[in-house]
Structure formats: structure tokens, C-alpha cells
């Protein structure tokens, strides 16, 4: 279904697109391979090879998952682990010695060590949500402007520059957020924490905007020119065409960009490690507190622990859970996109 829509764009408006496209995207060519004439042998060999390579990717993912899980699951039967940590304390609040109420605490060094993963996931989701709130409107807005409104000269400057943003190493963005953004944000908004979820989210947004922009812009470009022209011929204004014709038609592609951006955001490590302050505070609604994300925790602590330790197992459990969260969200996103596509193609 996807290919039909996209290919239609390719066939009907090759002249309009040829000047803009810099790279050739292989997935466009894929459906073109299937042909009615008799396939030569080397074609079939090539197809098989490609199929094997594709399966290798799946196998790699499965293996990665298995190897991460293998380090985590012994916690459920190991005696050494049970001596140190109770499984339920990983997920539920507990009233520890010296505290007056049940608390969610991540304090992996100490007697007893406290490994509650909830504040870490709260931290990750807070930063990711905030970053998405900033980057989705910005990315889509940019894409619409560049694809539909911008004069050629502007487009040829702005588009590569935004895509260049994706090429900035995250450690550089993290450093920028840590040294410059944090001071500016504290001076402007008077945050109690100099390093907090907002600062980290701004840093993150800088990496996600190009992801969303690139894919959304592609999707908008791929909307058949005929739709555009038909709407204009019926007397629609340019903004009406943009909002009511092009945007809905490009929505599945844009949604795909958003899903990809989300995956990038929740998996990003360096920026949050540097700019979020890394305090595991259990606070759901205040976005100006410091946060400790799952990824930053793994990055900061995995180097320290002895293999097979309780701490080691919990860190791998965090990895497994992060893996699962991203996987489920991706599948949900994918299903939503497919449903959207069906609806759109049925209408047209």
C-alpha cells in the first residue's frame, strides 16, 4: 500500500522531484524490481542474497535481545541475588530504614543497595515526552515550509543545514546543553536545578528535529502532484491545499518520522547523561527537576560493576526493559500508521 502512494509521486512528477532529490532511496526502487519478464538467474541469486541479509538483521536483533536477557534473568533464581535484593523492591515503593514513608529509590551503592527502576523510567519518559513536544511541531512545521512554501534558494540552503544538525555528535550537543543552555535556562526561567529535564529535552530536541524533518519532508514531497493541482484547480488557496490535502495525504509518513524520533529520543544517552543532572528523583509532574534516565544509568554504572553482581543483573534488566518499551512502542506506532494508510487509500 505504501509503495503505491509513494510510487505514484515518483511517476507523475519526476521532473519536479529530480532537481530536489540528492540521494536515491532504495526502498522506492524495491517494487520496481518485480517485473513480468523472465528473470535471469543472477537476479534470482541477488534476490535470495538480499533476503538472507534482511533475515540477518532480524537474527541480529533476536541475538542481541537474547544476550542481554541472558545476563538479566538469572536474578529470578540466583541465591546470591535474592540475598541482596528482593525482586518486588525493583518495582514497588518500600519503607526503608531511615525513611518515614514508602519511597522509590535508586541507590545502588550502599547497605542495603536500593534498586528501584521506577524513577529511572519516569525520568526517561519525562525527558522524551518533553523533547517530543518541542520537536514534533518544529520538525513538521519545518518540513511543510521547506516542501511547500520555501523558494528554491531558501530550500537549498535550509534543508542541508537541518540535515547537518543530525550529523552533530550527541556528545557535542550534550556539552553545549551542559555549558551554555543550562546557564541560559537558569538565568531566564530561574530553575532550582541548573541541569534538569527541560535542558536535556532541548538538547535532545536538537537531535530529533532533523530526524522528523527529513522523513516528514520526504513524505510531503511524495504526495502526488496531481492531488495538489486538482485542489488548486478547484479554487483552494495554498494554505488550504497544504493543510487539508497535502498534510493528510502525507500523514502516515510523518507519523513514521515521529515514531522514529521517539525511538531516537528514548535511546539517546550522551545528551541526557551530560545535561539532565542525573538525580533519580521520583517526581511525575514537575519537569524542572533533575532526572536520571535509564540510558544514562546504564552508561554511567555498567563500567563499575563486577560481572554477575546483583547490580550488574539489574542494569541488564534495565536494558531488557528499555528494549521492550521501544519495541512495543514501535509496533504500536507501526500499526497506527498502517491503519491510517488504509483509511486514506480507501478514501481516495
Amino acid at each position: 500500500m505504501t509503495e503505491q502512494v509513494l510510487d505514484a509521486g515518483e511517476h507523475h512528477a519526476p521532473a519536479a522531484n529530480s532537481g530536489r532529490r540528492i540521494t536515491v532511496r532504495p526502498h522506492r526502487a524495491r517494487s520496481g524490481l518485480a517485473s513480468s519478464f523472465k528473470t535471469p538467474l543472477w537476479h534470482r541469486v541477488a534476490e535470495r542474497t538480499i533476503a538472507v541479509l534482511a533475515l540477518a538483521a532480524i537474527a541480529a536483533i533476536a541475538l542481541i535481545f537474547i544476550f542481554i536477557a541472558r545476563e538479566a534473568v538469572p536474578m529470578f533464581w540466583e541465591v546470591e541475588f535474592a540475598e541482596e535484593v528482593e525482586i518486588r523492591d525493583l518495582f514497588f515503593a518500600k519503607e526503608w530504614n531511615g525513611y518515614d514513608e514508602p519511597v522509590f529509590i535508586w541507590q545502588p551503592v550502599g547497605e542495603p543497595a536500593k534498586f528501584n527502576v521506577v524513577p529511572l523510567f519516569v525520568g526517561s519518559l519525562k525527558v522524551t515526552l518533553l523533547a517530543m513536544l518541542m520537536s514534533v511541531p518544529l520538525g513538521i512545521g519545518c518540513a511543510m515550509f521547506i516542501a511547500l512554501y520555501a523558494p528554491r534558494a531558501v530550500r537549498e540552503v535550509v534543508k542541508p543545514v537541518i540535515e547537518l544538525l543530525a550529523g552533530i555528535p550527541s556528545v557535542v550537543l550534550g556539552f553545549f546543553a551542559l555549558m551554555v543552555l543550562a546557564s541560559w535556562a537558569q538565568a531566564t526561567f530561574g530553575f532550582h536545578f541548573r541541569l534538569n529535564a527541560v535542558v536535556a529535552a532541548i538538547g535532545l530536541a536538537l537531535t530529533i528535529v532533523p530526524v522528523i524533518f527529513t522523513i516528514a519532508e520526504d513524505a510531503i514531497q511524495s504526495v502526488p502532484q496531481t492531488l495538489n493541482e486538482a485542489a488548486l484547480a478547484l479554487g483552494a488557496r495554498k494554505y488550504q491545499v497544504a493543510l487539508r490535502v497535502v498534510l493528510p495525504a502525507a500523514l502516515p509518513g510523518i507519523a513514521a518520522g515521529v515514531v522514529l524520533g521517539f525511538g531516537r529520543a528514548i535511546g539517546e544517552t550522551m545528551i541526557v547523561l551530560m545535561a539532565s543532572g542525573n538525580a533519580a528523583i521520583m517526581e511525575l509532574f514537575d519537569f524542572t527537576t533533575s532526572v536520571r534516565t535509564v540510558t544514562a544509568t546504564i552508561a554511567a554504572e555498567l563500567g563499575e560493576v563486577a560481572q554477575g553482581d546483583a547490580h550488574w543483573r539489574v542494569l541488564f534488566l534495565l536494558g531488557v526493559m528499555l528494549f521492550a518499551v521501544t519495541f512495543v512502542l514501535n509496533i504500536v506506532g507501526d500499526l497506527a500508521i498502517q491503519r491510517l494508510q488504509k483509511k486514506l487509500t480507501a478514501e481516495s
Partner: protein
Amino acid sequence: MTKAHPHRSVFLILAAALAASSCTSGKSREGAEGSEATPQTRASSTLTIKGSDTMVILAQNWAQAFMDANPGKVLQVSGGGSGTGLAALINGTADLANASRPIKDKERKQLMKRRAAEAQEFRVALDSLAVYVPAANKIESLTIPQLKKIFRGQTTNWKDVGGEDRPIVLYSRENNSGTYAYFKEHVLDNEDFAATAQTLPGTAAVINAVSKDVGGIGYGGIAYSEGVRTVMVAPPDGDPVEPTMENATSGKYPLSRFLNIYSADEPSGIAKEYLDFVLSPKGQAVVEGVGYYPLPREATAAAE
């Protein structure tokens, strides 16, 4: 078009894991540069040292001086934290571990279990763990109980300890840090840090954060104290003491500690040569150059 995404974000997790591993090894310096080691001599002339971030600059200076004096020998020094160094010693990926805290019993046992080796401790320098506030904060001294309440999150305003009316912002170290462990043991009596304590990778990061935050307070090795003020610290039943060399050497300053190097079993070969160099007057001169305190005479004599 849509089908490719789940895989790509899965790779992002992989990337995160890679970042995790490179994060800890990224600080290793290019020890091989300029050395004349031939492949045959390399195995016996290469030493990997890992551990405390507090000691990383010190260890790099030692390694440089040692390599200058012994051409052909290669030392690789990296940081990551005392826990990281000891974990590397246990896992067999480092020959020596720098640690700004004593080894734990658990780590001793793990070393015995995994490598059938006894951990050997060498005290190599003296440090005063300093408490830092921004230059603008006029507070003179804090007692250990006050520090405990501050870092436990029970005292949250500077006016409660004799300062201005301003909320306190806590800066702590990552929990793989020996400095973190030392502070937790000696100041917090092994109770937990407040959840609001921000954890930063390395003393330099703490100093930088404190210097930029008017309400900030942090702690770290004495050699780093630039751009911030160190506060005098009073033991529970005594007068405020400044973290100077005399006070550290005499044991008056309540938060002075030894910096250690650990080896698995008695060091031999290049590891022994390196340790002898570290404890020699030349090696101890390096300590002072970096900003820590050389070992008191008796301690050096005892080590030899």
C-alpha cells in the same frame, strides 16, 4: 517505508550500549605514542592502569614520568571511577587499579573467586576531601553533622547553617566513584544521599557545576579546587579545620584519606617497577605537583 523502523530504533539501543562501553574506556590516553616497544617486548612492558577519576591526572603524570625514565615501557592509564578500576582488576582487564577508597570485602572475595588472587593495597598519596561552594557564598565552615543533614536532604536552605536565605543545590558524584563512597561512609554514616543530589561524572564536573550555581555545594579531591571556595570542616566535637597539607598529614582534617593502588597478588615485573617509582621521592614529588599531598615520611618507610 514504514517497515524499516523497528529495526532502526533497536540499533539505537545497541548504540546506547556502545556509548556505555566507550564512555568508560574513552579516557584512556595514547600511551603507545612515541614508544619504541617491539612486538616481542610489548607483552611484558605494557601495563594497564584503571580506576579513580580523582587520581587520573595524578596517575597520568606518574605514567608519563615513568615512561620518560624507562623508554620502551608502555603504561595505559584511564579513569572511570574507583569501582570501575577495581571491577576491571576483578575482571582481569587491568593490571593495577587506582582507588580513592579502600577495597570492599565483597571485592576482595570476588577477586579471589574469579582470579584466585589476593588484593594487595599500596597507599600512594594523601588527599583531603574538600567541600566546595561557589566563590560568592560567604559561609566559613560546616560541621560534619551539618554536612550530613545537607547531603541527606534534611537541611535545604543555606540560612539554616548560617548562610544567606537561598535553597541548597546538591552536587554529588556518580556511584562508581570512590569519592562518593568515602563521603557516604564518613559523612553520611552510610545512609543514602538525598534523591535530589545531582550526580556528575568526575570532580571537575562537580567543580564546574558548583562554580556556576549560587546555591550549589559539592565535594571532591583537593587538587581540583579552582574557581570555587573550599569550606573549613569541623569534626563533630572540634573546631573548623582547613584542608591544608599539614592538617591532612597530622590527621586533624576530618576528611583526609589515602589514595591507593591495588594489584592482584604481589606485583611483579613492570607493575613492581611502577609502584617502586610511585613511592620513590621522585614519584612523591609528582604528587605535590598535581596538588595532592605526598605520603608522610613514616608511611613511605612502612611501605618499603
